[in-house]
């Protein structure tokens, strides 16, 4: 498949925004149940919500560049009964709305509001946003995982990877964010970050191993219905390019795809973890921010590889110009 930059940005930016919100909400829950000390700075929650919103809005903006007719995007929620894309189109603004309300409630100091005595409004809003956050992970992942004839994507690991990468990169950003605003939280946020990154490594590794052993169900024989072991295309029907030759091919050599794979395996996992450890040991907020940036670039490479690796069965029909 063609890895469109808009989709690479959309999926990675949304993941960061969702993960950042999830990290911050976990900090609040742990503080509420007196398991960990919370942030001292009152700006911690509203600023984090604003930062998460900025990433989500950037992802949303990127998604418009994927559309041929962005002015009609409002129609895209119509078929939520059948389409995971429509479900994502509903889940994303709902989640953004909840995060905005969550940040606003923190900013206005509604944690113990006299209107609702005994109820922490922010905690309730955050719970709703967390549900929507994971609903959004499922929607985003299922857009790819539900396509049964793209075997590289048609696995629960796709959904799991989207969620784990989102959480890992969001936690990485939360760690860097805390280093600037609330250094007391850095150490345990960094612990979670490392944990999620390692679990994501396991899950993505499992997907890589699985995809390396795939057996394709569609062949040239089933594609044209001729049962002969030796078939080759001599003409695809036109001399130039077409939508079919552009949208479903990454247009790079196998060696380039392999090097992107090793690049993301390096940039998403060991490199940011090393920077994270260095940032904790120094301690240096700059190194932690660098860890996030490096991991984000790695995630762009990961998403590029995710698309490039998917070999669409329609490619059987478009192998040779003449």
């Amino acid at each position, binding site marked *: 498949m063609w890895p469109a930059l808009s989709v690479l940005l959309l999926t990675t930016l949304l993941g960061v925004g969702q993960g950042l919100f999830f990290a911050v909400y976990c900090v609040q829950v742990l503080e509420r149940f007196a398991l960990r000390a919370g942030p001292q700075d009152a700006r911690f929650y509203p600023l984090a919500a604003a930062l998460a919103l900025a990433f989500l809005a950037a992802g949303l903006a990127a998604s418009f560049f994927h559309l041929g007719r962005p002015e009609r995007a409002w129609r895209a929620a119509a078929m939520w009964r059948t389409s995971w894309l*429509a479900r994502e189109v509903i889940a994303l603004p709902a989640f953004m709305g909840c995060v905005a309300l969550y940040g606003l409630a923190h900013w206005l100091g509604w944690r113990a509001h006299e209107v609702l005595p005994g109820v922490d409004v922010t905690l309730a809003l955050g719970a709703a946003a967390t549900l929507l956050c994971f609903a959004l992970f499922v929607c985003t992942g299922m857009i790819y995982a539900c396509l049964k004839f793209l075997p590289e994507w048609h696995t629960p690991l796709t959904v799991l990877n989207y969620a784990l990468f989102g959480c890992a990169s969001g936690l990485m950003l939360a760690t860097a964010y805390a280093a600037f605003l609330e250094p007391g939280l850095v150490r345990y946020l960094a612990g979670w970050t490392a944990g999620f990154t390692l679990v994501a490594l396991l899950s993505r590794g499992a997907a890589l191993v699985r995809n390396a052993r795939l057996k394709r169900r569609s062949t*040239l024989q089933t594609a044209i219905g001729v049962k002969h072991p030796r078939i080759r295309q001599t003409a695809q029907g036109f001399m130039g390019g077409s939508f079919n030759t552009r949208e479903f091919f990454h247009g790079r050599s196998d060696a380039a795809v392999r090097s992107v794979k090793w690049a993301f395996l390096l940039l998403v996992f060991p490199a940011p973890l090393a920077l994270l450890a260095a940032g904790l040991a120094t301690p240096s907020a700059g190194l932690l921010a660098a860890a996030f940036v490096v991991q984000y670039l790695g995630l762009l490479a990961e998403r590029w590889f995710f698309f490039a690796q998917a070999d*669409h069965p329609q490619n059987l029909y478009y192998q040779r110009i003449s």
Partner: protein
Amino acid sequence: MTQLALVIDLNVCVGCHACVTSCKEWNTSGAAGVLSDDNPYGRDPTGTFFNRVQTFEVGEYPNTQTVHFPKSCLHCEDPPCVPVCPTGASYKRAADGIVLVDYDKCIGCKYCAWACPYGVRELDAHEKVMKKCTLCVDRIYDELLPAADRRPACVMACPTNARLFGDVHDPASEVSQAIRERAGYALMPEWGTSPANHYLPRRRAEVKVRAEDLARVDNPLKVDGKLPRPRPDEPALDDVTSW
């Protein structure tokens, strides 16, 4: 229920691309607007087509066959492209089973093209909406046309009559008979999409000539010997045959 479809006879398709050009001509001139056609005579021509004729070589030299393979939307009975559409622009008509795109609702997200294993949907580079074969829906119901012309443009154009058009749910239709009697098959059956369009396979074109086809032999199977003549004193019906 009606399910209109094409049945394409690979045994007689000669790969002349008349269906491709006829389809393009009809569908670029309709009310839905032009189909993109950039640099048609230039170095890198590109454009939107509903129908393509591809060529495959089957076998190993010198025992090869050339198979010309026209490919357009198969109007699946369970189309995977329809449920994924977020806007409902992509739909399957209940009345006649044609899978269509509402060009006014399509947002050009290309998700339906990802969800089609056959690669028959093409995004129009200028209108930025997904386009595909309509089975000439603006032609087959047009009562201003003579009844014989109410068929898809590709079917009208085919010089070898390799393209049949009709209702595959009607067991008495020409297309159903062709599928039944000439081993019609669907593409990529492994995905359960139940394509409505079918293909008729290549057939062996060997003619076996036996000696007895050229010169008549008397009693070739030698099963009935001559009956014995009755003795003259025995009764006979006609003086020749025995009882």
